[in-house]
């Protein structure tokens, strides 16, 4: 599902070139659930953005869901992301003016299309996570746990092969967050989806099948 070789990404800060991420080799199989851990500043989010196709690596090969996304143009990467990848962020990134249902449908609109089939699918997903009676509420009318569940539904609406999560429990108490994460992981497992989660939280990491420390992925010369 995921294959990275000699990937690096740098940023320029004034006169200095800062290496944001460097990965010698990383392979994640289809259906695998992997926690990506590491100290702050080791480039976990940058790597997630490279996997999503939001950023293009400076060097190396990135293969995700059967596509060499490092070789794709921006528009093709956007399309690939919309169709094959679901994303859940720490702050969930729901759009406030839209209802829960509309936020989920936004994912479909930019993914596989937001026709009537997508609407039924979105309603079913929201009902599945216990938001059947809250789907016409806006994010500011929902609790943090409910917002997180909406974000999960949005990530799943296009039935993606890969789900990328960036500190999805960052803003919640461990008990509520853990329950919601369990829901997502079960849905992912049932659907045979690959999950990559960036986290600082060892408890969350334990819920995953494998934990990868980003520091161990650095090329020997840099490490």
């Amino acid at each position, binding site marked *: 599902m995921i294959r990275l070789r000699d990937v690096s990404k740098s940023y320029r800060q004034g006169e200095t070139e800062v290496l944001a991420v460097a990965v010698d080799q990383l392979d994640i199989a289809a259906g695998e659930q992997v926690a990506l851990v590491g100290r702050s500043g080791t480039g976990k*989010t*940058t790597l997630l*953005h490279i996997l*999503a196709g*939001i*950023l293009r690596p400076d060097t190396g090969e990135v293969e995700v869901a059967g596509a060499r996304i490092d070789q794709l143009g*921006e*528009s093709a990467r*956007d*399309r690939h*992301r*919309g*169709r094959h990848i679901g*994303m859940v*962020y*720490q*702050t969930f*990134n729901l*759009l406030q*003016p*839209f209802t829960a249902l*509309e936020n989920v*449908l*936004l*994912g*479909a*609109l*930019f*993914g596989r299309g*937001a026709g009537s089939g*997508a*609407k039924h699918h979105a309603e079913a997903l929201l009902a599945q996570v216990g938001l059947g009676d809250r789907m016409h509420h806006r994010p500011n009318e929902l609790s943090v746990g409910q917002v997180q569940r909406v974000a999960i539904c*949005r990530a799943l609406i296009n039935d993606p092969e890969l789900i990328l999560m*960036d*500190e999805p429990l960052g803003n919640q108490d461990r008990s509520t967050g853990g329950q919601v994460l369990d829901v997502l992981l079960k849905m992912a497992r049932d659907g045979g989806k690959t999950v990559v989660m960036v986290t600082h939280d060892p408890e969350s990491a334990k819920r995953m099948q494998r934990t990868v420390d980003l520091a161990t992925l650095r090329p020997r010369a840099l490490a």
Partner: protein
Amino acid sequence: MKLWSISLRNLRIRLVATVLTTTSILVATALYAAILVMAEQTEQRYKGSVGGFQAVVGPKDASQLELVLNTVFNVGDAPALFPLKVAIDLRSGTNFSRRGQIRYAIPQARGDSVSSHAFPVVATIDEMFTKFEWQRQPLAFTRGRGLQFSFDDLLKLADELADYETARRTGAPSLPDRPLLQKEWKEAVIGARVARTLGLDIGGKIVPVHGKLGEFGYHPHPEAACEVVGILAATNSPLDTTIFLPLGTHLLIDGHEGGTFVLEIPPGKNPEDAKKLPVRADQIGLTAIIVDPKDHVGDQILRREFMSRPDAQVAKPREVIPRFLQQIGTAADALTVIAWLVLLVAAVSITVAIYNTMNERRREIAIMRSLGARRHQILTIIVGEAALLSFFGALVGVVVCHLSEWLLRDTVEDMTGVYLDWLQFGWWELWLVLGVTGIGALAGLLPAVKGSMTQVADNLAQNY
């Protein structure tokens, strides 16, 4: 869910900015539409209203435009008087090389008006309702009938008035009785809008007034109060605002008798001396004669006759009006340029309004991009906002233009003689709405390009 529904939602979120920007588009469109409507309907009405007026004979002193505007469109005061002799000559053919070239020659006299709307009073004869043709048909009535005062009645009355005036002016020892206003002449035919505005029906009373309310010389003529005997069907022309009285009534209104003769000043005499000279019946003053030459030959004969005539001239509305419209068109072109400038300012206001929101929308755009939105989709959403905003503004602008027509139609008609049909829509209005929408969409391009260039990772990163 569609991209345009996101555009619509974004407009609703920024409701105040949306309303203000839409208003600027609305004003520009309404102004532009109003100029085009006025130009179009003025042209249609002016061209359409000449339908029954093949030729107008009037005084030599006036310009042809003055003559046509006053006679056909009720605009301005009657320029001057000319003698009844002209009408007699036209009708009898005395001075024409060939007889029978005129289908009708209907004399008219103007000067008085009715009500604060100043509906013009036109004194005329029965042939206005039996021979005159409006769009190739005699004038139609919704109720009642035409006037009964004939040209023969006019000649007879002119003789009596001339005898009386001659005796009075020359200081004859015994003054004959002044002709009396006959009861059967105290009748009026009114246009459709006069009836509607004044709430008049058959049997209602019309009291002509001289001059304008509040001006020197203004006075009513209660002795000439006339009963409404006919109401004309609407023609959407100045005929709708006209009140027709018999010429006999006009001539016998108190104060008109002395001034209605066109005096001839013999060589060596001054105007004061001329007032003491005898008058003839054919010196009775008219303001216009509506003439319909039988054919092209009659038309040419009419022109030739009046080229050499010292007391009157002939004007052809079909020739005068296009020249007039050409002059109006130049003014309309200037106004159109102003409307374009207003539209341009409105378009710039769209650009500024949306551009100013781009900074606060970077995160929202980044989120959509992270969900898979391509740059062109972001561009479409933002251009869609500008287009929707312009479309609504233009649509409401056109509606406001027509509502303004409805509100101002009476005032415009009083001032210009142009009847505004507020329900008359043209295809150009559809193109105007689409054009303004297109201009608005173009105005949205700059902020749209900026929005589509939003860096996704940078603007999502602020949350980590």
